[in-house]
């Protein structure tokens, strides 16, 4: 069971949330949104990779090819 990817995603999520609120309090609203976007893109990369692995595995198990 790959538990490390979950904690990576959780870390990035919390980091972007904190970064967003810090940047917003400093008045740099647009940079805050960009930071959240960057964190989101990074997490998307990981999740898509995991999705591809699952779909490949399900295809072989359920003969869905």
């Amino acid at each position, binding site marked *: *069971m*790959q*538990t490390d*990817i*979950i904690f990576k*995603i*959780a870390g*990035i*999520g*919390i980091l*972007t*949330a904190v970064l*967003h*609120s810090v940047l917003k309090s400093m008045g740099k609203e647009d940079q805050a949104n960009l930071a*959240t976007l960057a*964190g*989101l893109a990074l*997490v*998307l990369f*990981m*999740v898509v990779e*995991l*999705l591809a*692995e*699952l*779909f490949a*595995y*399900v*295809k072989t*198990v*359920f*003969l*869905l090819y």
Partner: protein
Amino acid sequence: MEIIQILGLSLIVLVIYFILQEQKNPVALLLVLAFSLIIFLVVVRQVALIFATLQTISMAAGVNSIYLKTVMKILGIAYLTELVAQLCRDGGSSALALKIELAAKIAILTLALPILLAIIESILQLLR
């Protein structure tokens, strides 16, 4: 025991999801998606074992393997669409979930057609 790990980890993910949800962070939904993918990966391995035993039983019983293969395909489709549809509902758009389920039903129906024809033919032969 995988199930104990899954239960413990899901509580942690729930707490983190709650934290991220508070600050309207889109990563929360991706976290839930990642965790459900991991659970599905673990479950798929066990389903593979179940299917192996089903296959041996059906070989012994002499059942035509086409039927078992279609059943497995239908199960696979239902299995994946359930994952995505529930996630769409969780993300807030139930309309999207319904569309996905409609597509899955149509796919399952097209898969089940040959079996339907086979049944009808065997019934007709009985009646003649």
